[in-house]
């Protein structure tokens, strides 16, 4: 087992590497590879839903466009903007951790969490509005628009996909909270900070999925007048 020399941070031994890895570098690279592979599985999972959405949209183009017109584009756009901002704060947090700057890392992680919570809050408001407007399939769905089957299909996918995304956000916020605690306890350093980087990858992915969701749910009806 290779012995790595490492800088000792005040009050805490920096760890070398886990037992079953040959070197710290192997551990780092493998951990990163693990997260990238996991993201591939996530792409396939969301991908299934995107593909099913595409099939139904091709079958009901007018309905999807009309239903999309009724979405709250302001809230959607705000959510998109703040989520992208949270990716920015996340990236900065990861960079701070890489450089061993734990206080900035802490505040940036907290900011990311806060934005995430705001995002979820806005989504909750939107969901509630849809429910009140009888646009929640399975909960008193009703529409006067033509092709009601197509309209309902749009909303099924809206709730399923943004719902799945929200679950991923909640998990992400949980991970960030854990990172925040670990940062507070001084677990990270210039030598050991992969969890922050890896979680940053996950958060970035969740953000990118949202951008696509925004495109397919909020934008289709924009060209329609009236």
């Amino acid at each position, binding site marked *: 087992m290779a012995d790595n020399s490492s800088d000792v941070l005040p009050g805490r031994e920096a760890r070398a590497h886990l037992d*079953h890895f040959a070197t710290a570098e192997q551990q780092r690279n*493998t951990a990163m590879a693990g997260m990238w592979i996991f993201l591939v599985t996530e792409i396939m*999972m969301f991908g299934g839903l995107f593909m099913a959405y595409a099939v139904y949209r091709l079958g009901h183009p007018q309905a999807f466009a009309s239903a999309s017109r009724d979405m709250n584009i302001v809230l959607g756009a705000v959510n998109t903007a703040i989520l992208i901002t949270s990716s920015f704060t996340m990236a900065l947090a990861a960079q701070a951790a890489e450089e061993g700057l734990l206080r900035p890392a802490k505040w940036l992680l907290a900011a990311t969490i806060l934005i995430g919570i705001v995002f979820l809050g806005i989504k909750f408001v939107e969901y509630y509005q849809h429910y009140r407007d009888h646009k929640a399939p399975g909960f008193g769905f009703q529409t006067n628009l033509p092709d009601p089957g197509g309209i309902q299909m749009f909303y099924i996918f809206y709730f399923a996909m943004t719902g799945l995304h929200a679950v991923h956000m909640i998990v992400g916020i949980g991970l960030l909270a854990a990172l925040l605690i670990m940062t507070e306890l001084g677990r990270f350093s210039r030598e050991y900070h992969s969890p922050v980087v890896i979680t940053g990858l996950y958060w970035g992915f969740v953000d990118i999925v949202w951008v696509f969701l925004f495109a397919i749910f909020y934008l289709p009806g924009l060209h329609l007048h009236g």
Partner: protein
Amino acid sequence: MIAAPEITERNYLTGKEGVLSWLLTTDHKRIGLLYVASITAFFFIGGLFALLMRLELLTPPSDLVSPETYNKLFSMHGIIMVWFFLIPSIPATLGNFVVPMMIGARDLAFPKLNLASWYLFNLGGIVTLYAILRGGVDTGWTFYTPLSTTYSTTYVIAAAAGIFISGFSSILTGLNFIATIHGMRCPGLTWFRLPLFIWGMYASSLIFVIATPVLAITLLMVAVERIFQVGIFDPALGGDPLLFQHMFWFYSHPAVYIMVLPAMAVVSELVSTFSRRPVFGYKAVAFSSLGIALVGFLVWGHHMFVSGQSIYSALAFSLLSYLVAIPSAIKVFNWTATFYKGSISWDTPMLYAIGFIGLFTIGGITGLFLAALGLDVHVTDTYFVVAHFHYIMVGGAVMAYLGGIHYWWPKISGRMYPEGLAKLAALTVFLGFNLTFFPQFILGYLGMPRRYAAYPPEFQVLHVLSTAGASILGVGYVLPLCYLIWAWRYAPKAPPNPWRATGLEWKTPSPPSVHNFDETPVVNYGAYDYEALKGELGLG
């Protein structure tokens, strides 16, 4: 009987004692054994359902069990065998145990994730068993809509949930293997020096990771539709039942390659060790594994030739299905060629390997029939298909699994197994298997449909033959269960390399120490380089 000597050195079995040390282990070898226990239990539960089905099918009317019960039996047999036996079997048992050792590593990349995989697997299994005990599910393992979303009154959601959870177990195992094989090979072990077992496990892991999430989302949508009655796949509510089939088979076809690629991976090891030769055409076999994995994603529509899909889609899927058959054919020819002028041992693992090659060839050839559009129209949804996939899954994958278990048994347990009894069991399995499933090709050609509890009397003779075979096959499976349990305590101790094989796993003691290797090995020879190793193997 002379009591076999105790194994006294500290090894992964004796290292830490107590139930908790097993339930909280992160040692890939112990986890492999934990999986053996789980999947063996599921195998016999699924086998029990099969036995009940075959007993019912002895007579034309549905007299032993009601049609409703029969429908649940075949559904649960399929669900348990596919998701709780075949898919995890070789990867989670032999893969977990052998992969790190074969590449000179001390464990997988993510040992705790490995343990989590086992717990997720069991959780999924418990949820599915709950569905079974509460009354079962009767949609078939294929869950076609709208039967599963709207018409079935059985525990569809619970069954789907159990499968969904176990899917994450698969995904994490695949993720673990990919990261391990990429990042943790010992110095000198380049890709083309890897044993073919690793290539096969790697290709299977790619499928685990890419295909399984699609199943997860498909089952989730079925559950959502069933709970909220919202019509994603149900035409009465505006959905498309064919979309379900496309999504389901997009996963389930690659899934069958998850079941067979590891089996082929084992067979490559067995064929080379027991011919004492490199597998003929190493690179072709390695690339074939990848080829099967990749092209396997493009053929799912061959399950849907009569479904109502476009005939032009069907055309494309048929062509691609023939293309995916080519790498499998390459493997069969290359394995056979490995025997030529080899030094062939008839030890039990080799008997299973030979059985695999023969039976997989028959299964694969009948796949060619099914890939032919015009031929498929008649035989799809009949016993011809049932026979085809059982030849590959049982005649193929299960035999390879048993072969692998016997092959690595000395390494896993530190003991040998009774060779005479093992040969007898292998023969029983082979004969029982063929008697069970060959008549089913004929049944299918004659028009006997699948999933029928009752059937016209003219089919009875073939069914009786099939059931007779099934009872023999059952005995063939119970035998290893018994003698391996016996051998664990009482068989003679095994040397580190009883087969004089070349893999790195054979350089460890039998059983291995907790960390596998005291010093990381360095490799400067090819996977089956008997020439380079003949000195230390005592050959020539």
